[in-house]
């Protein structure tokens, strides 16, 4: 969806050994061609096979012609076709129809809300046709990787299995039946020590053709993050007419140039958010930064060019539109080159968030689960709250934020998993850890018959860090800090919601803390009160205090947080530095130009998905930005300004938390 920002070091777009890259492409092709999930029936009798034989036979199997109906269940809301652009998010449940001729030709019909998108590959050319805008885009074969030109399920399976084989333990887990065909169940589990958030990949392999019929990807939670199956499948020759595309009458035909060759991998790259497919967030093969334990970013990050994915038009936009700015620079060719480096500098400065303190994260949970009866409130969460960060916890109501915080503070026992608070185990280390933790959880709790000051005195009297004589001044200082000094003598009963909230904050801050946990701190506060809370949080951060903040107010989190974690139905679906996650859903580039038609032609020709926008062009996705700008300049399209659309947390949040029902 976005073009590549110039500031991205090449390594961010690459990965070690190219495994993830292979997976991206493989899965794209896999989906396109019809890898599969379906509910297993009774296990049929099949001759025994060893895992190694099965793997080898999958990798070496001859391509087979087939036709299939392919249901896709994508729980992460990530692009099912990496690089295909924001309009191709097959999140939730959808069913595609797939044909393959076994020799590089293929056809996919992908239903969209109000249209159908058709991909046809044959003879080295790919056509993309959308019935909504009646635009047919013709894309030549990939220049340096011609083998990618086909939509071949065997090739896709071969790439997945081959990519995972070296780092996984392979096993055969019995037999099953998919869409009436007997199949072996192949299980690939990452070997211990592999840095991946992937837990298991299961593939059902057709016993006869050795074609994978089903692919299930498990992450940290109990439900698969991705499941692709077949409802029905038939092997055998297909009508050749399926693999040629004839533009319907009245269709507008556009030509796209071949995608640029992929840049060379860089040694030692440690990408935080890379790629634009779910591989970047489910399969993590590079070194994992501490602050991105589960970097399941939603949406698409800057994509690697040249994966053979078709460039598409993007009638839908996810990033908020804003009118392109003319950057004040002289119009013309110098604009792109002068804009790009400046943007680089901005990004660098954004990355300069506080380095994790040497004494480890302020809080750490591993495989944390909490089950209430039949409801799983928190489901296998791994999370680090880096010391010194302002950590925002986001999620819809009922997503497990408060339960997670309560387990962190020892108020609720986890069903399973471990918790560390300030480096000490919970609950055993709580007496040592809690004196340095201030918390406002589930709203302020005070006695209505006592005044604000008396309530706070009671809290302060129980603080181990306060000596007797220090209690009174500490209480006064805390009241002053939250602006309650004037109302301290009144009974709590008569406080407004905002005053109650402030008193709760005062209790959390009555002694200097190392970690402050604030659960919905701005509830009931007016805008001025919200600003004051922000000021308090900023103040805490300046003095090196870690702040863990849960909120449903995205603007609040965006304004104060350095890191975020997003919970959805008890599972962590994204976590990491805020700006990196935002980059993953970054808006496209806004290009101010007087020649909209020319710019669109050049950009689409370069493989970008671009659309006309108020006063210019918006590039949602495509090759790295510098290439696009260079192409524009070469084509002598006048460029008046370039601006990165500002990504916002709401886009991110919506992407991650909505979708499947």
């Amino acid at each position, binding site marked *: 969806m976005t073009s590549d920002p110039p500031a991205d070091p090449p390594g961010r777009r690459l990965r070690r050994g190219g495994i993830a890259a292979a997976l991206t492409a493989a899965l794209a092709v896999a989906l396109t061609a019809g890898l599969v999930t379906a509910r297993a029936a009774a296990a049929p009798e099949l001759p025994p096979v060893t895992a190694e034989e099965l793997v080898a036979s999958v990798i070496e199997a001859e391509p087979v012609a087939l036709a299939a109906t392919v249901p896709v269940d994508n729980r992460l809301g990530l692009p099912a076709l990496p690089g295909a652009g924001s309009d191709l998010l097959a999140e939730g449940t959808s069913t595609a129809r797939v044909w393959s001729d076994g020799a590089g030709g293929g056809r996919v019909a992908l239903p969209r809300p109000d249209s159908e998108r058709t991909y046809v590959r044959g003879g080295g050319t790919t056509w993309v046709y959308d019935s909504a805008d009646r635009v047919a885009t013709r894309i030549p074969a990939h220049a340096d990787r011609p083998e990618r030109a086909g939509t071949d399920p065997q090739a896709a399976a071969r790439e997945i299995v081959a990519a995972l084989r070296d780092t996984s333990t392979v096993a055969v887990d019995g037999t099953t039946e998919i869409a009436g065909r007997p199949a072996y169940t192949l299980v690939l589990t990452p070997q211990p020590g592999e840095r991946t958030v992937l837990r298991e990949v299961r593939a059902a392999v057709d016993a006869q053709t050795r074609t994978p019929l089903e692919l299930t990807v498990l992450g940290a939670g109990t439900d698969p993050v991705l499941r692709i199956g077949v409802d029905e499948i038939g092997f055998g020759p297909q009508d050749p007419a399926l693999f040629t595309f004839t533009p319907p009458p009245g269709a507008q035909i556009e030509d796209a140039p071949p995608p640029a060759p992929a840049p060379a991998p860089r040694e030692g790259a440690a990408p935080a958010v890379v790629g634009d497919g779910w591989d970047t967030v489910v399969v993590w093969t590079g070194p994992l930064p501490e602050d991105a334990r589960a970097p399941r970013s939603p949406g698409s990050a800057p994509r690697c060019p040249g994966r053979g994915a078709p460039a598409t038009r993007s009638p839908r936009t996810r990033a908020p539109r804003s009118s392109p700015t003319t950057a004040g620079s002289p119009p013309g060719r110098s604009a792109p080159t002068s804009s790009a480096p400046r943007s680089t500098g901005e990004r660098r400065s954004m990355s300069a968030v506080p380095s994790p303190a040497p004494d480890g994260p302020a809080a750490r949970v591993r495989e944390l689960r909490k089950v209430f009866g039949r409801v799983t409130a928190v489901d296998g969460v791994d999370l680090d709250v880096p010391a010194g960060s302002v950590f925002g916890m986001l999620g819809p109501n009922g997503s497990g934020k408060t339960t997670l915080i309560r387990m962190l503070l020892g108020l609720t026992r986890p069903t399973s998993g471990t918790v560390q608070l300030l480096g000490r185990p919970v609950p055993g280390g709580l007496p040592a850890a*809690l004196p340095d933790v201030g*918390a406002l959880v589930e709203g302020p709790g005070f006695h209505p018959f*006592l005044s604000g000051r008396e309530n706070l005195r009671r809290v302060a009297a129980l603080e*181990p860090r306060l000596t007797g004589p220090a209690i009174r001044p500490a209480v006064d200082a805390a009241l002053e800090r939250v602006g309650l000094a004037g109302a301290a003598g009144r009974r709590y009963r008569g406080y407004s919601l905002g005053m109650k909230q402030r008193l709760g904050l005062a209790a959390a801050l009555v002694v200097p803390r190392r970690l402050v946990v604030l659960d919905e701190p701005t509830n009931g506060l007016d805008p001025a009160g919200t600003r004051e809370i922000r000021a308090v949080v900023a103040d805490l951060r300046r003095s090196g205090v870690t702040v863990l903040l849960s909120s449903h107010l995205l603007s609040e989190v965006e304004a104060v947080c350095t890191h975020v974690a997003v919970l959805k139905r008890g599972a962590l679906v994204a976590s990491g530095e805020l700006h990196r996650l935002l980059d993953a859903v970054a808006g496209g580039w806004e290009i101010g130009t007087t020649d909209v038609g020319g710019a669109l032609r050049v950009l689409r020709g370069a493989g970008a998905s671009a659309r006309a926008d108020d006063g210019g062009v918006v590039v949602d996705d495509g090759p790295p930005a510098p290439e696009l700008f260079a192409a524009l300049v070469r084509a002598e399209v006048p460029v008046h300004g370039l601006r990165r659309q500002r990504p916002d947390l709401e886009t991110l949040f919506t992407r991650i938390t909505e979708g499947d029902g």
Partner: protein
Amino acid sequence: MSGAAPVRPVPWSRLLGAELRWVLRRPRTLVGLGLFALVPVLMAVGIALSDGPSRSLLSQVTGNGLTLPVAALSALLTLLLPLAVAVAAADAIAGESQHGTLRGLLLAPVGRLRLVVMKAFGVLVVAVLAVAAVVVSGTVAGWVLIGPPVVPLVAGDGGALVSLSGSVLPLSDAAQRIGLAALWTLGQLAAIGAVALAVSACTEHPLVVLSSVLGGLILTGVLAAIPALEPLRPYLITTGWDAVADVLRDPLPYRGLAASTLVALGHLLVGAVVLTVRMRRRDA
């Protein structure tokens, strides 16, 4: 940074002091204590008035003011004193949980076992104060409004209390008897308090605690009235409650007092165990 320094728990004196403050600042505690002080006065007034305008001969003979605290304790123990303890126990854990303040205590942190001790202390303080209010008020009211027995024919001057057995006890003996009644009552209330705290630890609705205690007391009465359940009777806490009248007998029969105290001790232990186990695991 302060975080590096080792933490020493809050001293007990501060912990219990905070709880004491909290209990005594609560309006319902103060109102309850006032009522307990008032009840013996009302009883004394009633007795004095029924004795007629100029204190009849009968009242002079049987006017026996120092029996009043014992009688008041006995009357209040049937319902009102357990109610007061139950209210304190309900507020102590379930009430704190309902207000969200139990979280604050655990996060302070007050260790869970320390919290049990702190809360038991608070309930015990209420029980002590309630019994003290009844005894002090009953003694003063009995002495002032009803007066000492006028029994010169029987015992000469100096008799303070006529026992139920008819003997006359001197003031020192009378004071000991009243003190014994107070201590015994306190033991019974401690048992009720422990059970109420245990219930309180299992709920976050104070009303559940109150209804459990009152319902429990009524239930024991019902159970005691069923002949088929005769073997159960010695173990019911209310069974021994008429033993408090024994302090007015001469010589003092200890058997009933001891038996009922043992039953109370049993309740206390069960309550304390449930309370401790529950508080160690409780969500706040």
